C-alpha cells in the first residue's frame, strides 16, 4: 500500500486545495492519469499519477487544503495485496518541523535582557580601536585620559602619554602593598611618548616665536647675596628665579597659562612644567604646582626633591600631566638660546639659554654684563605676539627686581 501525496509542482508551491477527485476508490490507475484537480496560487492544476495501481481510499476530502507532501489518497500498487501503509519520509519531515515553531515562540530569553542591563552600566568611552588595544595591553585606565582625537576620542598618542605617566607613579593602587617595587618607566616608552607629543605639537600647533635678551646682573647679584648666608644644600639656583619670575609674569598674561581643547581654556592654577633631561636620553616634564604661590625657597625644595626622582624615572602621573605651561632651561655651559616645542595641550613654552656675558649698552655705555636670552613659543591659535611680548616684558621686570620675588 502506498500513499499518494500532494505533489510539489514548484519551489514556491507550499500547499494545494483539493477541488475535485477525478478517480473513485476502486478505479484502476495508469501512469499519466489525472487523479485530481488541485487549486494553487497559480490556478487550477490537474494532478497526474505516475504509478499504476488501484485507488484504495481517499485520505482528504474535496475542499481540503493540505501542504505539499501530505497524503491525499491510499493506493494499492499493481500486483500487491493489502498491507499496512508505509509511512512516507516526507510526512515525517513535515511532522518533525512542528516543534521548531514552538521553540521559536519562546524568544526573548532572560539571559539576553540581563546582558543588556550590564552593558548599559558600563560608561561608554570614545576611543580608537588601536588606542584601546594598546591601553589594554599596557593596563592603562581609560577613564583618566582626555582624548585629543575627533570629537574628543582617545587616540594612540593619548594612551602613550598616559603610559609614560602611569609608569612614573611610585605606587599605584595595585602596587600599594609593595611600594619598594614601584615600576620604573621604560626608557623606550619615554622616547615614544616624547616623540608622539612633539610630533603632534609640530603637526597641530602653529607656533610663533619671540625672543628677549634679559640683563641678569641684578638677579645674579641678589642670588650671590642670598646664597652667601646659606648652607650649600640650601642655596638657590638661577633657574628658581626663572620659574618664579615666569609664574609671576603670568599674572598679567593669563592667556599663556592654559590648554587648547577646541578653544583656549585659561587655567587658574599655575603649574609650571620643568623640563628635565635624562642621562640616557629623553625628557620628563614634571609640574611644579602653584609656582606663583610658592617662595623661591619652596621652589628650590621642590626641585631638589623632584630632579633625582625624575632621573630615577619615579614620578607620579599627576606630576606629569598637571602642567599649564612649560619652562626649558639649558643651565650652565649650554647653548645661548633655546626655542621650545609646545607640549600639547599647553599653549606656551618659555626657553632660557645659558647665562652668558655679553657686551650690552647700559645707561648709554657699552658694558660687559651677564645676560640670558629668553624665548617664548606660543600657540598662535590661542594667543598672538602681543600677548607674548607683554609677557616677556613682565618677565624682564620681575628679573630686574629679584627682591620682589
Amino acid at each position, binding site marked *: 500500500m502506498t500513499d499518494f501525496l500532494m505533489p510539489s509542482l514548484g519551489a514556491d508551491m507550499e500547499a494545494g486545495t483539493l477541488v475535485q477527485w477525478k478517480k473513485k476508490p476502486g478505479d484502476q490507475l495508469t501512469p499519466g492519469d489525472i487523479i485530481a484537480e488541485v487549486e494553487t496560487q497559480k490556478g487550477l492544476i490537474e494532478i497526474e499519477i505516475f504509478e499504476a495501481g488501484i485507488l484504495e481510499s481517499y485520505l482528504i476530502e474535496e475542499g481540503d487544503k493540505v501542504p505539499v507532501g501530505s497524503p491525499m489518497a491510499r493506493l494499492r500498487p499493481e500486483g500487491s495485496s493489502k498491507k499496512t501503509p508505509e509511512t512516507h519520509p516526507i510526512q515525517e519531515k513535515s511532522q518533525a518541523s512542528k516543534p521548531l515553531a514552538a521553540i521559536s515562540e519562546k524568544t526573548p530569553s532572560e539571559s539576553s535582557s540581563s546582558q543588556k542591563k550590564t552593558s548599559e552600566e558600563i560608561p561608554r568611552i570614545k576611543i*580608537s*580601536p*588601536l588606542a584601546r*588595544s594598546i591601553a589594554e595591553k599596557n593596563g592603562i585606565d581609560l577613564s583618566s585620559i582626555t582624548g585629543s*582625537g575627533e570629537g574628543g576620542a582617545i587616540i*594612540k598618542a593619548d594612551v602613550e602619554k598616559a603610559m609614560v605617566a602611569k609608569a612614573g607613579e611610585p605606587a599605584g593602587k595595585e602596587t600599594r602593598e609593595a611600594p619598594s617595587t614601584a615600576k620604573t618607566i621604560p626608557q623606550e616608552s619615554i622616547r615614544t611618548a616624547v616623540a608622539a607629543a612633539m610630533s603632534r605639537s*609640530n603637526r597641530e600647533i602653529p607656533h610663533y616665536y619671540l625672543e628677549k635678551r634679559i640683563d641678569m646682573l641684578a638677579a645674579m647679584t641678589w642670588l650671590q647675596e642670598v646664597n652667601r648666608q646659606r648652607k650649600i644644600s640650601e642655596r638657590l639656583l638661577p633657574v628658581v628665579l626663572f620659574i618664579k619670575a615666569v609664574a609671576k609674569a603670568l599674572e598679567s598674561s593669563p592667556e599663556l597659562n592654559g590648554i587648547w581643547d577646541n578653544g583656549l581654556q585659561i587655567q587658574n592654577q599655575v603649574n609650571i612644567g620643568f623640563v628635565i633631561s635624562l642621562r640616557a636620553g629623553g625628557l620628563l616634564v614634571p609640574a611644579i604646582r602653584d609656582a606663583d604661590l610658592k617662595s623661591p625657597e619652596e621652589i628650590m625644595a621642590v626641585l631638589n626633591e623632584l630632579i633625582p626622582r625624575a632621573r630615577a624615572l619615579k614620578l607620579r602621573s599627576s606630576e606629569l600631566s598637571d602642567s599649564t605651561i612649560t619652562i626649558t632651561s639649558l643651565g650652565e655651559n649650554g647653548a645661548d638660546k633655546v626655542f621650545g616645542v609646545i607640549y600639547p595641550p599647553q599653549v606656551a613654552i618659555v626657553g632660557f639659554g645659558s647665562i652668558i656675558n655679553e657686551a650690552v649698552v647700559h645707561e648709554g655705555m657699552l658694558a660687559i654684563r651677564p645676560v640670558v636670552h629668553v624665548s617664548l613659543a606660543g600657540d598662535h591659535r590661542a594667543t598672538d605676539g602681543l600677548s607674548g611680548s607683554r609677557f616677556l616684558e613682565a618677565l624682564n621686570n620681575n628679573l630686574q627686581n629679584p627682591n620682589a620675588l
Partner: protein
Amino acid sequence: MSELKKITYREALKAGIREALLNDDRVFLMGEDVGRYGGAFAVSKSLLEEFGEDRIMDVPLSESGFVGAGIGASLAGMKPIVEVMTVNFGLLPMDQIVNNAATLLHMSGGQLNVPVVIRMSCGIGKQLAAQHSHSWEPLFAHIPGLVVVSVGTHEDARGMLHTALEHPDPVIIFEYTSMLNLEAEIQIDAGHTDISRAKVRREGKDISIITYGIGVYKALEAAKRLSEQGIDAEVIDLRVLRPLDEDCFIKSVSKTHRALLVEEAWASVNISSEVSARIMENAFYELDAPVKRLGGSEVPIPYPLHLENASVPQVEDIENAVIKILRP
C-alpha cells in the same frame, strides 16, 4: 637603469593593444568605430591600416550582440579585445557580461573558460552630462566571475592589457577618457602589470589614501601638497577592483592607522564601501581614527563645468579631508 619615455595615456593604451596584436594571432580588436574612425578617442588610430579588417573589426551599434559575440569567440578559442566605446553604453551588454561571461565557468562546473577582455572608457571630466559621465566600476565589481581592473596610471595603460589577455577568465578594463591627453614619463621597459595586486604609488606613514582610476593622480598630488605641511600620506592604487587585493591595503592601514578612501563613483555602495568594510573586518584594532570616504555626489552628473567639478572629489577635497582626520 632603464630609460624613461614621455608618453600620453592614449599612446600607452595604443602601444598595449599593438603589442597584443603582434604577440598572438588569436587576438583581435572589435568595437564601434575602432577601425576606420580610428577609435572614438583615437586610441586605435592607424591600427586598421597595420593589421587589416580581420584583426580590427568595426561593429554595428549593437553592444549586446558584439559583446556576446566576443564572449562566444573566446569560448571557441579566440582572444578578443572587445571595446565598448564608453561605459555609458555598458549597461546594454550587461546581460552578456553577467549572465554569460561571468557565469559560464561556474554554471558548467568548471568546463567553459571565457578569456575575453572588455575595455570601456569611463569617468567624468568632459562636460558630457548625465548620460555620458558614468563611473560604473562598482556595478561591474559586484559580480563574481569577472576580473575588474582600473587603469589609473600610464604604466598600467601600457602594461595591463597583456596580462588581461593572458587571464583565462573575463577581464573588464576601465580606462579614463579625461586622462587620454595626460603626459607622463614611464620606463620604456616598465613591463606588464600584475593584475592580481594593488600598488602602493607613494609610501607614507601618517595616513593611507586608498583609491583607483582618476583618483590615483589626484591623490598623489594631494599627498605632495600635504607633505609640505608635514603630513606623510601613503597612496594606494587598488588597480584590481575584483577580486580586491585586500592584503595590500590592510597592511598599509595597519602601518598608518588611518584611511581615506577616494573615488569618483557615487558614494553609496561603491568600491570604497567594500574597502571600508574589509578594513573593519580585518584591521579594526589598528584604527586610530574612523575610516573616511570621499565619493561622487549622488546626483546625475550635471553639464556646467563648475557643477561637474563639484560632483567628484578634487585634489583640495582630498587634502582637506586628510587634514581633518589628522588634526581634528
